[in-house]
């Protein structure tokens, strides 16, 4: 197994451990972005730092905050002990991210807001001729939000080439499969028509993700990386199951899940 794939699996392992000990859910959406966050951890310059020239990373799908915390631990931004504070009193590590935690740019959790923040940052970089890039991780459920389309249209119109949005296309949302809940069209076509450069990749292949996230300076467009993922990836009884958007694990489920992830 490649080192980057091992890192993704390590993040997945930490997610299961942390969620079980906190008796919390939001597992399906966190498990689907492990490879995406691994790739970002390797591509984003100054990942988790406060350097002025760092690339910015915004988790627009804030309900996957646990995956972000585990990625920040995986890449050494935080000590592993910090995960014991997940969902504890007086802790910055809750089920949605807070910008007071190192490695978090914005409070997110209300869907369809983080991408707009990213558009603003990329616009500021363009206006002030700064070189950093802005990465946004977007849930496919956020395509339901009109504000996501507003932000995407603004970015396309303004040709914000330093902006990269990674769409976690796992096909699920809180109450059902995305295509059953709301027909939003094919993002590859609709975003292309709004002025975006589109690339589709297998969303659990870190090498493909890293290659897609790398900057192509010839393209003067924002980039949408459509990552085809599986909600609950890596745990057979969670994969493509709607209920694992919310459910916490029993001890038996946890032990089974850990065994599957460990033997992967």
């Amino acid at each position: 197994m490649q080192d980057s794939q091992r890192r993704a699996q390590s993040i997945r392992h930490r997610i299961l451990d942390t969620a079980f000990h906190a008796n919390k859910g939001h597992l399906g959406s966190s498990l689907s972005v492990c490879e995406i966050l691994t790739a970002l951890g390797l591509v984003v310059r100054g990942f988790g730092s406060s350097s002025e020239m760092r690339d910015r990373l915004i988790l627009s799908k804030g309900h996957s905050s646990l995956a972000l915390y585990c990625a920040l631990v995986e890449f050494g931004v935080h000590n592993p002990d910090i995960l014991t504070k997940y969902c504890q009193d007086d802790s910055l590590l809750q089920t949605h991210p807070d910008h007071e935690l190192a490695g978090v740019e914005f409070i997110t959790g209300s869907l369809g807001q983080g991408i707009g923040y990213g558009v603003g940052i990329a616009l500021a970089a363009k206006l002030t001729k700064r070189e950093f890039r802005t990465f946004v991780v977007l849930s496919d459920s956020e395509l339901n939000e009109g504000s996501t389309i507003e932000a995407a249209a603004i970015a396309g119109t303004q040709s914000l080439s330093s902006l990269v949005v990674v769409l976690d296309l796992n096909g699920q949302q809180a109450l059902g499969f995305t295509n059953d809940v709301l027909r939003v069209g094919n993002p590859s076509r609709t975003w292309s028509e709004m002025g975006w450069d589109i690339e589709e990749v297998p969303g659990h292949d870190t090498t493909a993700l890293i290659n897609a996230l790398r900057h192509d300076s010839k393209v003067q467009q924002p980039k949408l990386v459509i990552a085809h993922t599986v909600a609950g990836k890596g745990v057979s009884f969670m994969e493509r199951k709607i209920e694992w958007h919310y459910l916490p694990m029993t001890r038996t489920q946890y032990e089974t899940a850990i065994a599957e992830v460990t033997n992967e």
Partner: protein
Amino acid sequence: MRNQLIEKLTQEAESDTRIVLLTADLGYGVVEGFTKRHPDRFINVGVAEQGMIAVATGLAHSGMIPYCYSIATFASLRALEFIRNGPVAHGLPVRVIGIGPGFDYENDGITHFAVDDLAVLRSQPGLSIWAPADEHEFAGGFTLAHHAQGPVYLRIPRRPVAPVLEVTRRAGDNADQRQVLLLSFGDARTESNEVMQSLLGAGIKPDYAEVFWIGSHSRQQIANLVNGYDICVTVETHYEAGGFGSWVLEVTQTLASPPRVVVHGVSSMPVGPLGSRSWLTKKHMTNPALTVQRVLTIASRRS
């Protein structure tokens, strides 16, 4: 006033390169001066008020000072959650320009009437509200608004506001006779004058003051202003509930002997037949005679 605002921004942007003017596709005949002078820092985001505030949040996060231009209802109510979760939650210097307080958009109807913007925005920690009524107040307050660390909502009249009331008694002039204080908020001078005349007609001689800010920095000023008065009448182009008068009521409760507050504002929902600003004011704002009656009732109980 909106022309003056854009002229000022155009001028300030010469030296302050942090200024960016965003519009949600409004400002025809108003924003062109800025557009021509600073085309790279003028962004029409389209009819996308939420997107405008979100983008402004990102801009402010990166060191810019974005001004977001729209009609007051759209800028405040449509984008409220974005204002709350963005510049308010992160303490960022986003400037939300809301054009047209109260019934300024008269024939355009309730969708365009900013009669509840103060109620929702003044609840937000760290957000200041600035409602200049004329060029003098605008010139005096711009620096404070521009350099405020947190977000500011600029409640800007669409059309000229009546001149400052010619009154003989101003707040604080008669330290030994503090009975009734009439407080006018922002653009409410015409309405304040109607209330003033009604009070005078009833034999009540109120002191008078104008207020243009709602925010944590002005709480003490308001408390000092009203301290010692028996009755404070507030006048605003906003629903009676939740706006300036409610704020004064809250602030004054910290005083040892708070005045009774009589709120004069929009008292019924402006739907159905429409008309001019003055017609809407008569139909939907508190009847000045009722405000006088309320003052007289309180005064009689106190005497």
